[in-house]
């Protein structure tokens, strides 16, 4: 028999018993919807967790520090993060880029406000990780040190006269680092005359991008409080300022002299994929450094989330299982009712396989209709949950995002799963129908 003929016969049979078909489909609708909604909550929780971790730092970034616990035993220089170390990190598989972090503390002044902050020198690759809201990255060929500032740096300013800043008053200081120039003073090396510190004005080439909350205030991300520039330019600048004098923050040897190379505070290792972060982190640790990544916490959190998701999915699966029993029951009843008709089909020469397929298609079709309608229902329920429960449930204020998320694969899987469940439930009845005796058709009542 042609598939189109089988399909037509099956659908006609379903239409003949509209109410019963409808009720059975309703069971599948509820089953599918409960699975989809439950899993969507699981996915939502998981993704929100990932997003939270992402906002506190890129998930593919590993921060590497000097291991002070182990250092100093034989040769202090062993623990330093230097250009050599950076190169050795680059040799680890899956490492996309490595950036040294060279930071220096500065005092800043704009109008009536002054503040303190840190300028971090990063490699070009690391700078490119920063999403800019306005402007551009520092030009490496530029003679002056161009800066990228975070939108929240201004919060570290206080009024010079009163000494009261954002953290005391809760008001944003009237400081605009991106729009207006400001003075920068470097830490004293102790060599120059006191009180005669040089003031510099560096051009600001870019502003770190940040989302704003409903009051228009910038929202935190990992670059919000930083001032960044190219590490090579920073090195040049520092050399220009301190000349032969030791640079504050740089270690000195036993004789009190600085080393003839830069020692970085820490380094960022960028990994090509989230899944490889733990592997690279282990390699870095093995080399004798301390390493931290968001991934390491996320992984634990994800294990928990997986469990929550499995439990939620299991709860949903129970109702789909009940629906499957409903399908099997409906199909069995329909077969008993149609014993004679099935007998006629067999007498007329309908192949056994075709009879089985006919009933499987019928059951599968119940699954399909239930699955599709259930999916629509779950979209509705999901949007209701997001509207009324979403942020409240997570206790995250405004920036939570949707707690129930139905990705494409879940939609497709839900409908596919419903069809498969339907057909599985219909398998036994279909085999039963196939084995019915054709003699039932001959019997005359």
């Amino acid at each position, binding site marked *: *028999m*042609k598939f*189109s*003929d089988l399909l037509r016969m099956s659908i*006609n*049979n379903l*239409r*003949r018993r509209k109410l019963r078909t409808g009720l059975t489909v309703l069971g599948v609708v509820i089953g599918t919807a409960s699975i989809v909604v439950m899993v969507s909550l699981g996915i939502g929780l998981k993704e929100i967790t990932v997003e939270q971790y992402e906002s506190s730092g890129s998930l593919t970034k590993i921060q590497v520090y000097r291991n002070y616990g182990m250092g100093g035993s034989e040769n202090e220089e062993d623990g330093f993060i230097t250009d050599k170390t950076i190169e050795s990190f680059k040799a680890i598989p899956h490492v996309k880029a490595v950036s040294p972090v060279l930071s220096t503390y500065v005092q800043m002044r704009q109008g009536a406000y002054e503040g303190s902050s840190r300028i971090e020198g990063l490699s070009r690759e690391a700078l490119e990780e920063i999403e800019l809201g306005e402007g551009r990255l520092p030009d490496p060929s530029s003679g002056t040190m161009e800066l990228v500032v975070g939108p929240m740096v201004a919060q570290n300013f206080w009024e010079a006269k009163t000494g009261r800043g954002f953290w005391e008053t809760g008001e944003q200081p009237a400081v605009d680092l991106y729009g207006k120039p400001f003075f920068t003073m470097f830490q004293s090396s102790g060599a120059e005359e006191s009180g005669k510190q040089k003031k510099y004005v560096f051009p600001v080439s870019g502003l770190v991008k940040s989302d704003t909350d409903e009051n228009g205030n910038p929202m935190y991300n990992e670059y919000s409080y930083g001032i960044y520039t190219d590490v090579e330019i920073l090195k040049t600048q520092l050399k220009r300022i301190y000349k032969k004098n030791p640079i504050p923050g740089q270690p000195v040897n036993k004789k009190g002299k600085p080393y003839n190379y830069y020692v970085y505070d820490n380094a960022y290792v960028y990994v090509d994929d989230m899944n490889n972060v733990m592997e690279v982190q282990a390699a870095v640790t093995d080399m004798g450094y301390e390493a931290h990544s968001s991934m390491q916490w996320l992984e634990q959190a994800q294990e928990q989330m997986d469990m929550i998701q499995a439990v939620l999915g299991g709860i949903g699966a129970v109702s789909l299982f009940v629906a499957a029993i409903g399908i099997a029951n409906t199909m069995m009843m329909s077969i008993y009712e149609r014993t*004679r*008709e099935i007998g*006629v*089909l*067999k*007498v*007329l*020469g*309908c*192949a*056994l396989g*075709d009879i089985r397929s006919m009933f499987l298609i019928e059951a599968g079709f119940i699954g399909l209709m239930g699955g599709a309608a259930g999916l629509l229902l779950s979209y509705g329920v999901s949007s209701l949950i997001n509207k009324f429960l979403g942020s409240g449930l997570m206790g995250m204020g405004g920036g939570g995002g949707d707690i129930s998320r139905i990705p494409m694969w879940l939609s497709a899987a839900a409908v596919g799963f419903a069809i498969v469940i339907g057909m599985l439930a219909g398998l036994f009845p279909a085999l039963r129908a196939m084995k019915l005796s*054709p*003699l039932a*058709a*001959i019997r*005359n*009542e």
Partner: protein
Amino acid sequence: MRVEAEKKREVVIRVRDLYKVYRMGDTKVYALNGVDLDIRRGEFCAITGPSGSGKSTLLNMLAGLEHPSKGEIVIAGKHIEKLNEKQLVTFRRERVGFIFQSYNLIATMDAVENVALPLSFRGMGKAKRAKRAKEYLKLVGLERFMTHMPNQMSGGQQQRVGIARALAVDPQIIFADEPTGNLDSKTTMEVLKLMQTIVRERNQTLVMVTHDNNLATYADRIIKIIDGKIVSIEENHKEADLEAAREEGAQKNKDCKEAAREETPQKKMTEEKESGENL
């Protein structure tokens, strides 16, 4: 005394030494107790007998619906007692047409779809089988009922659809199980006449089971079964007659044989069989 031409016609169904034994607890019931039978191409053959005589069992076995306990059935050169169920279905699909007592039309399909149904089992395309179904519906005189559903048709009309369905597959043999059992006497005659005409015109082989000896007289040959054994085979030629049927309807007590026109001479040949002869 048989007509020579008929003698030469090939045997379509050959039954040898056929037994069907049912077990009822400890006792064995012989539904068929040693049956030998030949049916030739183009023959209209009636199997009669009282209820419980085994006539339906014989038909079921000829149509490949039941397995015999012993013996052989050869249809068009094929031993069907050796076929498994799957092969039997294929056999029925390719070679057998079936007319039921209670018509057994599919309630959700109209006349054309019902006639086309067995063709769809063969994988024939929709347009092609609908065309063929319409041809056969015309043949049975239902031009105006093509799109009627079974419940919109009378019993006689439904049975005509049933006949068209059996014919449409162009079978080698048509089996009819009490085809007029649910019809009134007038319609019975119409349907019987229709079957007789079509079978003659198209040289179809038709095996009909009936408990009504009167109906059986319209067949070319009457095989009488009692207690699972063939007790007599009669050669017979009688035209089903609508006029006769109408008269019969009017005068119920009048004997059908007398009412029938005398234009066809009746040939009768009775072979009495000893019950133990074929065991």
